[in-house]
């Protein structure tokens, strides 16, 4: 439990990693939306990031305030080594489990009536 990551948490951490120094709410939300088509609420992102931060997986720093944000500050996130380790573990686990199964999986998935696009709660 202490080191396991949920799927949504993985998506967020990957987004933070990919955004390098520009990882704040809007960018993270858009990255997830662009890549997965999932429309995520801003509140949910901060809730998840709050959880990750309390587990030491990410750290945050306050940024500058901006007029287009009605003068409110940004909060940037960085992935910590512990977080990277957990994420890497989760990713490699999936990869090794999926080894050789991808074509079969794709064929089976094509027969699904509808892709499950349910947004996280």
């Amino acid at each position, binding site marked *: 439990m202490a080191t396991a990551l949920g799927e949504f948490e993985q998506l967020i951490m990957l987004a933070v990693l990919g955004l390098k120094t520009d990882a704040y709410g809007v960018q993270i939300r858009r990255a997830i939306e662009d890549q997965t088509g999932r429309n995520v*609420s801003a509140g949910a992102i*901060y*809730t998840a990031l709050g959880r990750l931060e309390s587990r030491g997986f990410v750290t945050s720093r306050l940024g500058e305030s901006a007029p287009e944000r009605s003068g409110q500050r940004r909060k940037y996130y960085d992935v910590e080594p512990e977080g990277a380790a957990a994420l890497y573990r989760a990713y490699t686990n999936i990869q090794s489990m999926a080894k050789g199964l991808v074509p079969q999986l794709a064929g089976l998935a094509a027969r699904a009536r509808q892709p499950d696009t349910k947004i996280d709660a």
Partner: protein
Amino acid sequence: MPEQHPPRLARWLLRSFLPSHIREFVTGDLDEEFRRYVTLQLSRRQARHWYWSQTVRSLANGTAGPRRKTLPSFQKDHAGKTIMTTLMQDIRYAFRAFVRTPGQMGLILITLGLGIGATTAIFSAVNEVMLRPLSFADPDRLVMLWESNDERGWQQEHAAPANVLDWRERVTAFQDVAFVSEFTSGAALTGLADPVQVIASQVSGNTFSVLGASPMLGRTFTFEETWAPSEPTVVLSHDAWQRYFGGDADIIGKTIHLDAVGFQVIGVMGPSFRYGINDAELWVPFLWTEQRRAHVWFRQAHVVRPIARLRTGVSHEQAAAELASIAGQLQQEYPNTNEFMEAGLTPLHRFLTGDRRLTLLLLLGAVGVLQLIACGNVANLLMTRAVSRRQEIAVRSALGAGRSRITRQVLTESFVIAVLGAFIGMAIGFTGLQWINALRPPELPSLSFRLDWRLLSFTVAVTGISAIVFGALPALRSARLNVADQLTDGSRIGSRRNSLLAANGLVSLEIGLAVLLVVGAGLMVRSLRALRTVDSGVDITNVLTFEITPPAGTYRTDTERAEFVAQFLEQLQTVPGVVQTGGVRRLPYQGFAWTSDFTIDNWATDQFGVEVRHREATPGYFTTMGVPLLSGALFKKQLSEDEAVPVVVNRAFADRYFPNESPVGRRIVFDRSADEQSNWHPIVGVVGNERLSVTADPMPEVIAHLIGDPPRTVRIAIKTSVPPLGVMPEVRSTLHTLNADIPIVSIRTMEEVASEALASDRFLMTLLSVFAVVALGLAAIGVYGVAAQAARARTREIGIRLALGATGPAIIGTLVTRGMLFAGGGVLLGLAGAALGGRVVQGVLFGIEPSDPTTLLAVAVILITVAAASSYIPAWRATKVDPVKVLKAN
């Protein structure tokens, strides 16, 4: 590019309900993205929609904060946690709960909003008309005086000026008595770019001082100015001052021209002055001459509404008694005019709201009923919700939540519901009032949605009571729960059965209340139909009507005025598309002008008739309006010098006073007794009855040639062979060539005139029908909800029955019958209520009894059908369960 703001309310919600540690970043993110959407791709509407959906979802799942070991309300309050924190936590929790069950919450909020909205809108109207005080000083001491006369069938009628002046001098209980003309008249205000018709009202000079109203600029009249002074004076309303004179600060002392007569402006009333007696834009004194005052007319013509201010310390009863005794004296002194003439008084405000009182009280009652139905529904929905949440609550108390903590949580939730409902209700009420304004009949003043303290406290009271009732019920039930029972599945059925009984009872009541509203609406619909089918006696197709007021300054005598009208009508005949033209004092549906006694040349000296109605018309009027000539002849166009003014009588007159002979050729005089010196009028013809008012049966009427007594304002009627409004430009230019200073006002087809006469009834019918439909909808939702609950509670039983071989239809039958029993009870209850309360609506009905069996039966059938349909669906769905699954679940 204009600055783009995210939706304010959404932003406020975010700022208020997001946990503080993420508030700034979430709102910042949303604002930033919102602006990007606006500038980049989305329309403002889409961007707002996006922002709202983000807000709702962020509030729902962003409020949880870092993962907690337990849900917030599982914890007991520990020291150091303030009440505010707990409250905010509860509110957030409530929002999350709402988002989890959007359908149910939507239903609750819309139901509550409809109830509150309808009540608020109607209450605004009632408030405006009946509760908001007139802007008079010490209004409790103001009374309206009136005269009644048994012989003539008068109730609280206008008074004769001479009598009023005597009361003013003799009744010591009155500090002062003023008198006003209840009806306004149009006057052409000239000297501006275009002549306009302004609404003028005649008053006695002391009117403003009696009402206790002071002007904003200048002064008001003195009592002496009531009579013809050397230069007439005028007082302007604030509106007229702004509209016609651009708020000219130097207006006082200037002369304005009304109907080509110069009036000196002596005062302007303030913007808050509400006259309340009519919608006058300006006031002029009566300007009666010495001759007029000396004439018997002054005691005969019941044309003014007297308003008295009581002396301090004098009660209404004392004043009424003294007035009655003075009226008795006048009976002795002036037997010719005052025999049977009694006098009395009514508090001014009550008198002025009298006509509208019934309509508004009816509507208020109707929305009250609607609100009750809505409350019943919401209570039911919340109880269902409470039942389905028992397990959750039980888990919470098992984990250590105290009873008071749970009660507080549930109450907070109800409070949040009530507040949201109030917001939605205000919005619906606001929209509803716009709509009522568009529909309102002329006797209601323009209504504005005013958030005054009465309305606010009313809404807060309704909402507060709703919150307590809906909140307390489920909360108290929940807090009394036995945790162990709830956690083991066993006791479910028993408690459900109890709550089902309560729910069914509520729904029965709802149906009963809905019956009341549907009966009311049904009666109004049928009453209006009856009103529509009354024969008007005229042919209203292709008739154009409008009013002109030949200015008194230009056409100084009756003859000049009558000649001008005749000349205008003559020239109109040449306009293409015009078939026939006529002029009259009042159109059908607009009432009669005055009434009088009369006697006929071959009647005995002490024989006379009373209360014959009078109008004046030009010769062409009858053919224009399609009024048939039954015998004799219509008027000649020209009368020779000294020729007596001829009259025609209507059929009702001929039937009542000349049952066995023809009145044609007889002479009539409008007095009780007559001699050869009296003003005799030859009766030249008998015409068909016209409908002078919406409801009354045809009454005896005498119509005189317009030349005898041409009214100041003449209604022109034009029969056309083309669509009536099409001839208007030609009509206008014809009038313009004769006199460019006469405005044409109230341009309407005769069909519109007839339709406007029913406006008040249509208004009541439309509103009641809307309420009835909403009530039906709410009752249907109520029935559906309870039926679904009942079906759910019996899923197991139904499964077993199906397994044992029962058929679907049989089970549906059982379930629907059970629902029908309660619905039928409700319908009976409602019909009983309608029978008892029917007398209340009697006053607004025409040609139909409140206990009309057809209506009652139809309503019963409608409600039973609605109830059956709403309970059928859940019953049908219940039979679709898979018996195997149900049995396995046990």
